[in-house]
């Protein structure tokens, strides 16, 4: 059975701090891993990681994948209150029908205190 574990479950930091969110996974027919940010209702896409060791960056956010150790991290530097959200990771796999589908982790709830 596919497994996705995110840690920590919850994190509270002060504005300006740097945070690291973790995602470990065990999925068959792994293809890529995606990160989403969910502030209120609709998750919004952050990154898609396909290759090991190649960091993807977007402003203060960055992410990297380790396909050997089966995990990914999401870093946020100089955090701001607008970073408060639930961060979801989702390994993508090829299903039995040949169509990829995502398996989501339960998320890390990040709260930034001003």
């Amino acid at each position: 059975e596919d497994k996705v574990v995110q840690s920590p479950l919850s994190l509270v930091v002060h504005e300006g701090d740097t945070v690291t969110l973790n995602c470990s996974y065990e999925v068959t027919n792994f293809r890529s891993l995606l990160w989403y940010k969910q502030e209120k209702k609709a998750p919004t896409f952050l990154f898609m990681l396909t290759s090991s060791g190649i960091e993807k960056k977007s402003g203060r956010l960055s992410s990297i994948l380790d396909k050997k150790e089966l995990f990914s991290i999401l870093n946020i530097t100089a955090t701001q209150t607008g970073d408060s959200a639930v961060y979801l990771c989702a390994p993508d796999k090829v299903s039995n029908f040949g169509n990829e589908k995502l398996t989501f982790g339960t998320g890390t709830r990040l709260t930034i205190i001003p």
Partner: protein
Amino acid sequence: DVKVTQSSRYLVKRTGEKVFLECVQDMDHENMFWYRQDPGLGLRLIYFSYDVKMKEKGDIPEGYSVSREKKERFSLILESASTNQTSMYLCASSQDRNEKLFFGSGTQLSVL
């Protein structure tokens, strides 16, 4: 920008009622998905569709059915709603089989 629209933000239904959740996307995406999100369980895939009139079961299809008569519209149906179907329902779409999902704003369904 891609827009995925879910017809209701909040819905309250009685046990045994038939419930329709509607989702429309405006970017001609091939793939559409229905997830439910519950505290501590994350997003779980109910059904997905990769073409008109095509549907595939996700991880938790029991108690649900879907309909995709037009490319832009994907409906989730609860034939006889039960209290354990109280949840946040999220619709999503994607163009390619391995591309990112675009999500709707969700429907919070309460079954009393």
